[in-house]
């Protein structure tokens, strides 16, 4: 029963090698989907290319459905998985700052690494910028501590926070995604084409 490494089915020593293999697939999929191009990524904010929206939500739904299903069938113990913790204002303020950064640069960290791998100079500059940003954060750590460590709600899922049935939630989320995908195609037809 999964997860395999925390349950000692695969020895822990394999962790780093598995990390590299998973990373190779991650990088390959992102690059092949066009995520090494900042102009393609930024298209989602201007309506000329919705690849980010489609890849992101398809991946989110496939993974959420798959994990719930494996848990339901008893192959994967969902309670053993690492749940991203919820620090309410940290998530909102941090996310908002990242949103501005996304539109300004057209990359997020994962996609910028793909662009670095194929030689994009703007991506190299961007990664350098991220490191400066992390250094700035470390210097302001005391000041930002109330946001970073405050408003902690625990390692909660939507089911805990909203008292939702996960299966209904995923069902409704899927329908919403299909509608959004169809809507995004309508928008793209009306927006002036951008070629890159």
């Amino acid at each position, binding site marked *: 029963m999964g997860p395999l490494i925390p349950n000692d089915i695969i020895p822990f020593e394999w962790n780093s090698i598995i990390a590299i293999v998973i990373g190779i*697939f991650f990088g390959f999929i992102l690059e092949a989907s066009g995520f090494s191009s900042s102009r393609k990524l930024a298209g989602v904010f201007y309506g000329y290319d919705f690849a980010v929206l489609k890849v992101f939500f398809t991946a989110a739904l496939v993974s959420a459905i798959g994990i719930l299903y494996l848990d339901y069938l008893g192959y994967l113990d969902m309670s053993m998985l690492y749940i991203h913790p919820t620090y309410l204002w940290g998530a909102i303020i941090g996310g908002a700052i*990242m949103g501005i950064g996304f539109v300004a640069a057209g990359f997020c960290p994962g996609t910028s690494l793909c662009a670095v791998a194929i030689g994009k100079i703007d991506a190299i500059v961007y990664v350098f910028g991220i490191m400066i940003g992390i250094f700035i954060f470390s210097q302001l750590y005391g000041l930002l501590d109330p946001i970073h460590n405050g408003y902690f709600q625990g390692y909660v899922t939507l089911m805990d926070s909203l008292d939702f049935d996960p299966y209904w939630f995923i069902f409704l989320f899927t329908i919403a995604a299909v509608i959004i995908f169809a809507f995004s195609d309508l928008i793209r037809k009306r927006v002036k084409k951008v070629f890159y």
Partner: protein
Amino acid sequence: MDKEQNRHVYWNPYFGGFLLGLLIILTFYITGRGLGASGAMKSSVVTMVDATSHEYAKKSAFYSKFVEGDKNPMNNWIVFETIGILIGAFISGGLAGRIGWRTQHSPKITKRRRLIFALLGGVLFGVGSQIARGCTSGAALSGIAVLSTGGFITMLAIFGTGFLVAYFFRKNWI
């Protein structure tokens, strides 16, 4: 750049998204955790600061978390995964003939402007990813996969703010 060049260059986004979803399932199934990216950049910064002054790193409230005792910040799951990302993207780009030194920007702006905005965007993403404890991959995507409330909030904040401020950056892109 003509129309033909723009078409069929990349995978169908639903195909890419589907494979990415399967990869996230596999990652959680094997390791019990999700994907990430900004974590490796944090490890790099920690390593550089630690190499410059170990005394300082040990005293700092932020860096001391990562350099206590014999801890090596580069011996970290995300760092290895990131090495994989670089290899995988290089293979994909190589197979498609996309490798080469270049700065990609809209023909309406200069290269200099593009690089300045790339740097500024990076700085913002660096600060934001630390406040939110993860970026689009680690917090938003892997968070949503296990229905984490924080993952959903981070995703909504990133894309919501992106759409709100897109107007002010339009000259860079369209």
